[in-house]
């Protein structure tokens, strides 16, 4: 055993079968109220056979999920430096606010006058996000980042259509998140991949070379997925604008730059934010998220409808302009997520949001500095909220990035994002976020150093990892070859 102090340790957990492997017909896990009306006859020809769900008692259900939860790892368990995902601490008070009965029980189709509280929340949140990005027009309908991207692309399309210019291409850097090209493609745009320059950021020429009148615009993630600020963003935006294109800003990495940059001044026309990341709303297992879209004054007319507006002291839903791209959500987006983000912003205020970005960057820069001697940096430039290393050194010992990641599990950490962005070989993308304190970061750094030593001294420790987790490595090929998607 190394002398490094490791959070991960062996403990006991409980096995638990699948839901339908337990239970007994006739058990009940919740009440069905006694009927106070006569039982009505239902037409036989329309009636089903009954659904084959297991019958469980309340105890069965509670134990089942309690045990399952103990096989999981969350931010409350420990450090979760998953790059590009901003896994920061989720304040508990926001859960309480979100569960306020009067707000949480609201039906989404009630008349404006009956739901002023919720409309105020939507309206004020729109205002806050406008203030944070510098882009005045905001919709909170999109349910996640990718949904926001799609909304953005719909706006691109509507804008060009109004100008009736036919454009079928869009510029997307090779460092972009997969959702960017996928969202563009949904609107019939053909992504034109842009190589990032030798220093990991876009250079002006490469854009100038390809931007033309068939191109709807560009999608830029800034800070980009290498954790670098796109220094040429304004010049790039000018080139794109000059050709009549629009600039889409992927704001998933906003956590690095709140109160530091103004998207409008960067030349961004449309930008989505990932509230579930930057504004710390829990999204266990992959969601729910919220991906509001902020746009320039000029593009506001294209935003989805409805949006909350304020008139005097009252709030109402505005169904917008005929140019609106329409609806992207059945109702008002993931309102309960919006409410948590609203609480977070009200708790932090401008001062602490900016501080959060500064500390998020400080933590990443500190890790980069401390580990750059241990793992090769993808790009040695000032980093923002995350730093990216390559597997160049590990490979010498026939150790893969995956091995390192799995060993980190045994040590009690959630691994960083790996093999993304694609431009870095065996990428190891570390985003600590601002809510990790110095001791914990120092401990993490020591553990990574220890693991890299182990790669030389005891490589099997890595190749066999994880050994402590509930499962050893799982066979993903088998899963894909012989899909077993339900029991």
């Amino acid at each position, binding site marked *: 055993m190394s002398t490094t102090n490791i959070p991960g340790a062996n403990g006991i957990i409980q096995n638990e079968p699948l839901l339908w492997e337990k239970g007994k017909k006739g058990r009940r896990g919740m009440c*069905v109220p006694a009927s106070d009306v006569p039982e*009505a006859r*239902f037409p036989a020809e*329309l009636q089903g056979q*009954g659904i084959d*769900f297991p019958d469980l008692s*309340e105890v069965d259900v*509670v134990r089942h*999920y309690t045990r*399952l*939860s*103990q*096989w*999981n*790892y969350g931010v409350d368990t420990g450090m979760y430096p998953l790059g590009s995902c901003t*896994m920061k601490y989720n304040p508990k008070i926001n859960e309480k*606010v979100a569960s*306020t*009965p*009067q707000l949480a029980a609201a039906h989404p*189709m009630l008349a404006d006058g009956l739901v002023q*509280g919720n409309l*105020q929340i939507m309206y004020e949140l729109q205002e806050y996000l406008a*203030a944070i990005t510098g882009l005045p027009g905001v919709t909170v309908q999109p*349910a996640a980042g990718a949904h926001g*991207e*799609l909304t953005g692309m719909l706006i691109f399309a*509507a804008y060009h259509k109004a100008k009736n210019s036919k454009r079928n291409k869009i510029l997307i850097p090779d460092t972009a*998140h*997969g959702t960017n090209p*996928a969202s563009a493609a*949904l609107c*019939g745009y053909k992504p034109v991949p842009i190589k990032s320059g030798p220093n990991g950021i876009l250079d002006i020429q490469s854009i100038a070379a390809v931007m033309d009148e068939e191109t709807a615009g560009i999608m830029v993630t800034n800070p980009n997925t290498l954790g670098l600020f796109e220094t040429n*963003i*304004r010049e790039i935006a000018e080139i794109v604008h000059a050709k009549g294109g629009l600039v889409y800003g992927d704001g998933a990495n906003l956590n690095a730059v709140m109160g*530091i*940059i*103004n998207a409008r001044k960067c030349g961004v026309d449309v930008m989505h934010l990932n509230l579930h990341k930057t504004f710390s709303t*829990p*999204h266990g*297992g*992959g969601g*729910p998220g919220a991906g509001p879209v902020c746009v320039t004054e000029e593009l506001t007319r294209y935003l989805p409808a409805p949006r909350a507006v304020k008139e005097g002291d009252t709030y109402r839903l505005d169904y917008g302009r005929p140019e609106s791209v*329409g609806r992207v*959500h*059945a*109702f*008002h987006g*993931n309102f309960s997520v919006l409410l948590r983000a609203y609480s977070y912003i009200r*708790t932090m205020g401008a*001062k*602490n949001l900016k501080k959060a970005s500064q*500390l998020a960057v400080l933590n990443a820069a*500190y890790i980069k500095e401390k580990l750059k001697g241990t793992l090769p940096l993808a790009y040695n430039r000032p980093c923002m909220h995350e730093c990216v290393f390559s597997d160049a050194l590990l490979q010498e010992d026939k150790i893969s990035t995956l091995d390192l990641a799995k060993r980190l599990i045994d040590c009690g950490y959630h691994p960083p994002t790996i093999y993304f962005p694609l431009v870095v070989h065996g990428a190891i993308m570390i985003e600590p976020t601002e809510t990790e304190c110095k001791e914990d970061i120092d401990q993490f750094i020591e553990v990574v150093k220890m693991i890299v030593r182990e790669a030389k001294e005891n490589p099997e420790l890595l190749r066999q990892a*994880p050994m402590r987790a509930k*499962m050893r*490595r799982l066979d993903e090929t088998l899963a894909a070859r012989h899909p*077993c998607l*339900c*029991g």
Partner: protein
Amino acid sequence: MRYLPHTDDEIEAMLAVVGRKSLEELFCSVPDACRYEGVMGLPEPMDEWQLTAHAQELAEAMQVDHTYNVLIGAGSYHHNIPETIRTVMSRSEFLTAYTPYQPEMAQGTLQGIYEYQTLVTRLLGMDVANASIYDGASALAEGLLMGLRVAKKKAKVAVSAAVHPHYREVARAYLEPTCYEMVELPVGPDGRTDLSGLAAIGDVAAVAIQSPNFFGVIEDLLTLGKDIHAVRALFITSFTEPLAYGLVKNPGACGADIVCGEGQSFGLPRSFGGAALGMFACRDEFVRNMPGRLVGQTQDLDGKRGFVLTLSTREQHIRREKATSNICSNQGICTLIAAMYMASLGGSGLGELARLNYSKAEYFKAQLRAKGAKIVFDSPTFNEFVVEFKEEFRPTYERLLAKKIVAGLELGKYYPEHKGRYLFCVTETAGKEIMDAVAGEVKP
């Protein structure tokens, strides 16, 4: 600030390590021209108790609050939610995890989603269900796009006018910039979709029917399915009230190819329409065209059963622009909640609860008929139905509002032809006395 652990000394020490004099200096790579001028225009920070008080003010600004009896469904239903679900779901190992990219430390989420997928396939009678889409509306849009992918060359989809109006709006928005066309199918006097014009449309990749539909009417899916398959189109069904399938024949049993709908009824509060839960299922043969994440069973090195994300070559992070969808974050927590709800209710409870909803609605119909109101569509319904009153209903509506009852949804805004008619919903939460109170106020 309690969320920011760094003390000034620690900041100093860390800045020294990275060779910066100040926090500002960390951003030296940001050109001045890009910088935020001044301070963001946000309200002053609130402490925990100021925030709580503020939330209380907002709560009081809700004229219709949780103590009202809101007799509206229309895609967002009021069902009882057992406290067990809130308790178990609040466990941080579920709540504060993210997408299970590292299966060895996310088996709780993965088995939970696998169970969700399984329960959903059983509920809908389909072969595969994914790990969720944003909501019922985007699920329909994704379903139509999937139908177009499967059908290849065809460029049209047809959607029943009895599908939730908002769902149709979303589908239209998704399709707008594409080369695809969306046609609407009329609704007959019986409140069911009329397919007589279908053949004439031609070149239809897929047809989408909602059942129970927006009017609460249970469509004759079996027959519709036959007609749709007859024109070689894919049969897509949509839903807003999954509880119905505890009583009503499910889409799978009626030959549906793709099923997409909203799962909010299963343990999620109405919450002003979100967080929602897009349920999405299809037949095996189409799985590789399916949008969204899938969890599959596999083994670990010791041969132990485990679960992983699978078939991800369909997805954006691998396939990028060729992906079956752009979706990444989905409705994770909501899927677990829905699974907990289905598990708590069980097959027996599901049937019983569905029957209760149905009986409540039938009782309510009878009470209203007795007051001379007309149930507009005489086809079977589940827990929703459309009513036409002898006289202008608005004043009655207002009187009932004063009694903390929201008496249905006026349809004019959504269907001009149904102006002045009301869509009512009653679930297990609507006591007899509430329904009697409504009937009591109706002028005969």
